[in-house]
């Protein structure tokens, strides 16, 4: 059986006449954090949606641990933080986690989830009473409570202040340290630099550069300079 956490093979996705993905080839290895970096509209969210079985590739193939991303068996091994407009606000933090944990065959104990997501002391708070950063940490908790081997984070730190962003980075690193894999989309270059083993820069649905943060940076002073150079060159 294929144990590769995620594999995109020549994936294209068209929405009407819009080509959101144009022949994406991408592999995430065990224990690796891959940052998918790109401007708004580059195809990051579409890539995430195909990986979660929420969108079907127009052509090509997406495999998660060798399986179809839509299968329940595959989904037990994956957790995700999506960009959601609203979450039921009257349920408490521990109630949300309790419910999501029940979806998985081998969930993490509640106390571990709370700790891993940095939610100590907030268990009895209602979701609607939390700050933006705390709400993101609840979504992170819901993504990891099923003990997944692959975590997918779609712009998890958008709109967070520096402190909340750093706190979430710490939790992501702790997750990776246990040998799991992460696909992270972001348009914060510092985030990719701080977390990623591999950075994949996509532009208009295809990869324009990939490598370690150091390789991407090359001779440029910062990753940001390198990114701008790349976009101008393509």
């Amino acid at each position, binding site marked *: 059986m294929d144990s590769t956490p995620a594999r995109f093979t020549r994936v294209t996705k068209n929405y009407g006449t819009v080509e959101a993905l144009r022949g994406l080839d991408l592999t995430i290895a065990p224990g690796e954090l891959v940052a998918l970096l790109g401007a708004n509209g580059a195809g990051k969210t579409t890539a995430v949606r195909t990986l979660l079985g929420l969108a079907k590739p127009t052509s090509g193939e997406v495999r998660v641990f060798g399986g179809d991303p839509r299968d329940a068996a595959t989904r037990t091994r994956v957790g*995700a933080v999506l960009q959601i407009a609203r979450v039921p606000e009257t349920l408490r933090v521990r109630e949300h986690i309790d419910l999501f944990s029940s979806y998985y065959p081998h969930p993490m104990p509640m106390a571990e989830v709370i700790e891993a997501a940095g939610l100590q002391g907030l268990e009895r708070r*209602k979701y609607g009473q939390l700050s933006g950063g705390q709400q993101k940490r609840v979504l992170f908790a819901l993504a990891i409570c099923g003990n997944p081997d692959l975590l997918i984070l779609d712009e998890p730190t958008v709109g967070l202040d520096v402190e909340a962003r750093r706190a979430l980075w710490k939790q992501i690193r702790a997750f990776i340290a246990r040998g799991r894999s992460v696909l992270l989309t972001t348009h914060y270059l510092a985030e990719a630099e701080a977390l990623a083993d591999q950075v994949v820069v996509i532009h208009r649905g295809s990869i324009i550069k990939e490598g370690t943060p150091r390789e991407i940076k090359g001779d440029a002073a910062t990753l940001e300079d390198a990114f701008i150079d790349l976009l101008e060159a393509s």
Partner: protein
Amino acid sequence: MKTYLLEIKYELLKALRMPQYSLPTLLFPVVFYLFFGVLFNMKNVGSVRMAEYLIATYGAFGVIGASLFGFGVSVAIERGQGWLEAKRTTPMPIAAYFVSKLVMAMVFSAIIVLLLFTVGTLLGGVTLTLGKALALLGVLVAGSITFCALGLALGFFAGPNSAAPIVNLIYLPMAFLSGLWVPILFLPKPIQRLALWLPPYHFSQLALHITGGSRGESVLMHVTAMAAGAVVFGAIAYLGYLRDEGKTYG
């Protein structure tokens, strides 16, 4: 199994913690009943006391409201805001999501009917035997299935903000034209004929078969109409679900 129970538990908690949404659904039919059935004291419908007649029709009215709002509007909102999609990335059985909302609508329906019984007995001089009361409760709660299917169909085609107004636009005229507010015999003949095509009419007639005051049409016809409604609305809801999938998964 545990997932199903937890989904139900948290649906109930959500409703309890949002009394601004749940209380109107529960109290609206009771207030209407109090007004028309008890205080207004209209003349009898044939040999049946108005307070008894209207307990059946306002019971139907309340159940339909609980089903359309509790099911339809809440699906439309959670779907529109991306919460349903977030759940779909998990291995949650999708049925658990819908079953919990169906149970929720049935619990609400039962509460509404029991409130009507209480008001009717204490203030309206209604004397239903225990057997009749239980039969009425059973018919009214079971009927919520048809209207949950309608709610679901609306929930899949309406946006999160337009769902509630659309539901009202369908719910209130349909209730009136089916004779849920004012007995059908008091309505003009053309409306009486039109009502034959409206599911709430058949629903209320089934309830009236128990309290007395039905028009004596065949029970089988009413049951068939309710079942056909459930199938048609369910099919429309399913198309909406496929359309949703297609939009994202096409």
